[in-house]
C-alpha cells in the first residue's frame, strides 16, 4: 500500500463522514448490523436519500453490505475505522511528544524559580 493510496482512502472516508446523517448511521452501525429501513428510521428523509448516503459510505469503504441475505444488512468496516483513528493517533502522538518536552521545560522553570 502506497502513501498515496492511503491518503486517497482517507480523503474518501473523511468526505463521507463530513455529513451529520452519515455520521449518525456510522454511530448506529457501531452498535451492530442494521438494514436500510432500520438505518432510515431516525431521519425525516426519503428512502432514496438514505440509499444514497449508504452508497457513499460503502464507496468510502466504511461499511459493507451482505450480498446473500435478502434483507442485505449493513455492517461497519472496523478495519477502515481503525485506519482513521490510527491516522489521528499518529498526529496526536507527535503533539503529545511535544507536550511532554514542554512539561520537562516547565519543571526546569519551576526549579529555577524556587
Amino acid at each position, binding site marked *: 500500500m502506497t502513501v498515496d493510496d492511503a491518503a486517497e482512502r482517507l480523503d474518501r472516508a473523511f468526505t463521507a463522514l*463530513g455529513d451529520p446523517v452519515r455520521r449518525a448511521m456510522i454511530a448506529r452501525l457501531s452498535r451492530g448490523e442494521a438494514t436500510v429501513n432500520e438505518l432510515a428510521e431516525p431521519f425525516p428523509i426519503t428512502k432514496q436519500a438514505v440509499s444514497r448516503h449508504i452508497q457513499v459510505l460503502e464507496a468510502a469503504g466504511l461499511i459493507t453490505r451482505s450480498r446473500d441475505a435478502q434483507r442485505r444488512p449493513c455492517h461497519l468496516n472496523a478495519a477502515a475505522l481503525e485506519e482513521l483513528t490510527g*491516522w*489521528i493517533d499518529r*498526529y496526536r502522538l507527535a503533539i503529545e511528544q*511535544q*507536550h511532554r518536552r*514542554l*512539561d520537562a521545560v516547565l519543571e526546569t522553570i*519551576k526549579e529555577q524559580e524556587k
Partner: protein
Amino acid sequence: MNETTITAQPGTPFIDVVREFDATPAQVYRAWTDPELIPQWLGPHGVTMELIEYDATTGGRYRYIHRDADGEYGFRGVFHVVVPNQRIVQTFQYDGSPDEVSLETLTFEDLGGRTRVRTHSVFGSVESRDGMVASGMETGQRDSMARLDEVLARAGNR
C-alpha cells in the same frame, strides 16, 4: 498524566488542541515565548531546530528551521496579538506551501497553579487542514523509519 485532546471534525477547517500543564500561566507563557526555551520542545521528535527569529510581541514575527536526515523544513509567522500570560494570536506558515497560512489562537487559562492551554487553528480550507494533519502522519512514519534504521544498524554491528 495530562492528556492531550485533539478535535478535528471532518469537513471543517479547524483543529482544536487542549492540554493542561502543571505550572502557572506565567510559567507556561514563558516556555511558549522565550527564544531560549522554544527549541527545547517545539516540533516533532527527532528533528533539530534552528531558531532564526522569535519576537513574541504584538506585531512581532518568528522564523525557524527544522532539520532531519531528509532535509530542512522552514516555518514562519507573525504574532498578531500577544497578551502576556493570557492569549497569543499568530499566523503559521510552512515554507513548502507558502500560499497556505493558518491562524492560531492560544489561550492560557488559570486553573489555580495549573494552566489549561487551548489552541484553535483555522486553515484556509478543509483540504489544507487535512494536509496538515496528514503531514503529522508522515512525520510519524519518518520517526518510525529512523528508529528502524537505528535497530538495523545495531543488529548489523553485533
